[in-house]
């Protein structure tokens, strides 16, 4: 086998073999499995100290900016957003190009309730912000989800732009000056959410991500998840089989919007100052790139994609003005060589399907016995 053949083999392997890690962990004894997962989670919580580990540190460190800042301000936020967008794009198969709109709705709700027009505490604002984002998802989804594919894309793109321009022009929302002095999360024991130390924000964000991942995993394997699967693969067939496609698409939109809004509150609570230029249209496209880059429809892919898209430009800051160019070229190359994304969707064999055998039919009179149906 020549080198190029080997490379070809490597880049075009079918989806199933790549995602063997999860299955192998799943087959381990219970104790081993849980200790492995615990080890993984602990190492994630230790991320702010990663740059001090010898080899890993050289790999991940971001020259010019603090690594801590990058993981709290960008990586955590992008991962959360990618998780939410993955519900819409990856699970339900709806192309959303205006996801930044929901992110902005979350951030602005927190801003308005905790600084601009009221003085509510952070803990109260966040659920309200999530609910408001969810409602905005339903409001946008109700008229538009009857549209198909690419029409939906352009309409959502318009929505993202409308949110930004409205925020820019409405004095009630602070206009182009934006909103400052947004509430920060309350201190929890030794975790003090101040300006100097970014670590508490990181721990908070990571915890939220783990909760969201757990929630989404349950959802993905529930009736709702199966309905999304059906809608994504063939909407007409799903409708014929009795799936209320509109309802489930709306659910996907609402849940996606809620997670986007949650990411927005996290962002606004950390930077404590937002203005409309924080939510440009390009950010939506970056979010979508994160999901597709990681692997559409695969939660671990979305996490990886979000982390890579957020971290990579900071890692290569030493050619600061050229990093966006590099990012563009990298997008093309990844799509050309791994069109399914870095971690493709696992074509999960349902357990009942793996053990299912076609029913043995006793040959009827006049049949040879080998003929089927």
């Amino acid at each position, binding site marked *: 086998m020549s080198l190029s053949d080997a490379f070809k083999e490597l*880049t075009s392997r079918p989806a199933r073999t790549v995602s063997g890690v999860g299955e192998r962990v799943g087959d381990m004894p219970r104790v081993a499995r849980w200790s492995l997962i615990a080890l993984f989670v602990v190492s994630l919580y230790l991320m702010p100290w990663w740059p001090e580990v010898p080899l890993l540190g050289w790999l991940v460190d971001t020259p010019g900016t603090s690594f801590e800042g990058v993981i709290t301000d960008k990586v955590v936020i992008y991962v959360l957003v990618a998780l939410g967008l993955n519900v819409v794009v990856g699970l339900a198969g709806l192309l959303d190009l205006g996801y930044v709109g929901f992110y902005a709705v979350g951030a602005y709700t927190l801003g308005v309730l905790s600084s601009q027009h009221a003085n509510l505490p952070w803990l109260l604002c966040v659920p309200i912000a999530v609910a408001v984002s969810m409602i905005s998802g339903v409001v946008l989804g109700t008229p538009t989800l009857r549209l198909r594919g*690419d029409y939906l894309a352009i309409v959502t793109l318009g929505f993202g732009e409308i949110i930004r*321009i409205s925020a820019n022009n409405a004095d009630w929302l602070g206009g182009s000056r934006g909103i400052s002095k947004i509430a920060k999360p309350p201190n929890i024991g030794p975790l003090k959410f101040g300006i100097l130390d970014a670590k508490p924000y990181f721990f908070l964000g990571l915890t939220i991500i783990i909760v969201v991942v757990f929630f989404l995993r349950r959802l993905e394997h529930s009736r709702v998840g199966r309905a999304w699967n059906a809608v994504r693969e063939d909407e007409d067939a799903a409708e014929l089989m009795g799936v209320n496609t509109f309802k489930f698409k709306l659910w996907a939109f609402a849940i996606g919007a809620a997670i986007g809004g949650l990411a927005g509150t996290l962002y606004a609570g950390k930077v404590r100052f937002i203005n409309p230029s924080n939510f440009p*249209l390009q950010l939506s496209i970056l979010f979508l*790139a994160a999901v597709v880059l990681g692997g559409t429809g695969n939660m671990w892919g979305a996490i990886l994609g979000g982390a890579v898209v957020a971290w990579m430009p900071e890692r290569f800051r030493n050619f600061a003005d*050229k990093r966006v160019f590099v990012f563009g070229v990298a997008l*093309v190359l990844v799509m*050309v060589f791994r069109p399914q994304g870095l971690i493709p969707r696992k074509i999960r064999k349902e357990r009942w399907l793996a053990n299912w055998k076609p029913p043995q039919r006793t040959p009827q009179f006049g049949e040879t016995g080998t003929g089927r149906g």
Partner: protein
Amino acid sequence: MSDWLIYRTFWDLTVTGVALGAIYALVALGYTLVYGVLRLINFAHSEVFMVGTFATLITATNFIGIPLIEEGNYPYRTGITLVAVLLACIVGGMVVSGAGAVLLERVAYRPLRGSGEHVGAVVLAFASAFTVSLIFTGSTRTNIIIGLVGTAPLAVLYLRIFRRGRSAPRLAFLISAIGASTAVAEAVAIWGPRDREQYQTSRVLEKRVLFEFLGTDVRIDYVLVIVGALLMLTALVLFVNRTRLGRGVRAVAQDVETARILGVNVDFVILVTFLLGGVMAGAAAMMFTLVYDQTRFNIGFLLGVKSFTAAVLGGIGNLRGALLGGLVLGLGENYGAALFGGQWKDVIAFVLLLTVLMFRPTGILGESLAKARV
């Protein structure tokens, strides 16, 4: 108060709106053609337009040698010279945009369809070697040398992988187009002589008032834009409806597999589709610089989004729909801006789109490139 504004300037707004709409329509044709044939949003079409504006700029200033300012005035030309300069500019824009669109198809789309070939492999190989070298050195000359050295071995490797023969999922096309679009715009911003600044273009046409229309002065550049756009559209419709190749385009739009079985060279037809879209965008680019006298590395993005909106508004995949959508969008934006204030311009465009799609889910005229009712 703003109500009075729209009464007083209604016909003024109409003229500028129609001219703007004509430019939208020409760019929208590129989206509509590609969508009609491949069923995908050609996200990088905006950059094809942007490259066209730079081509007209370079044709006028560098090839013909017209300065920005001459003896304190604009470098106006008259008579035959003017016509020759304008023609050279539009041809320059069309050639470069057309070539750009074709190259784009080869680099960012065809490898994903599983039938990549040499041009795409070589360009991608150069781009990847060049990009990797950026990480290690800032000298542009060294980067180019490393890029060139890396091209040959990488291209051979890429070509093997490209021909895997199965098509990627639809979202992959979208992302690779977004990547290509980002890379092109950024390349202009990084290596262009004025970086991220605005470029002025030389104003060769004196923008005189040509005639009066319902109490409004109609400037000559608007007339040129509107007439030019109509001519281009007519030529395109004739091409798609009357020629053999046009029939191929319609056949592929209807059913790719059947067309292939019946002997249509599908890859060639797709190439022609991109070429046509690029040529239209090049013409639009020249008209844009004619009216606005400027360009910039990111000029394509918003205009591209608007033009795509126009294409959807009229019914994507429908050539006549692109014209109608462009005009409706241009006019709607202008009237809306006068009514509610200029800052709401983009909001109005999208609200208009939402309203139309609610009542006519496939646009004003519906999708129809395949049905040949253009």
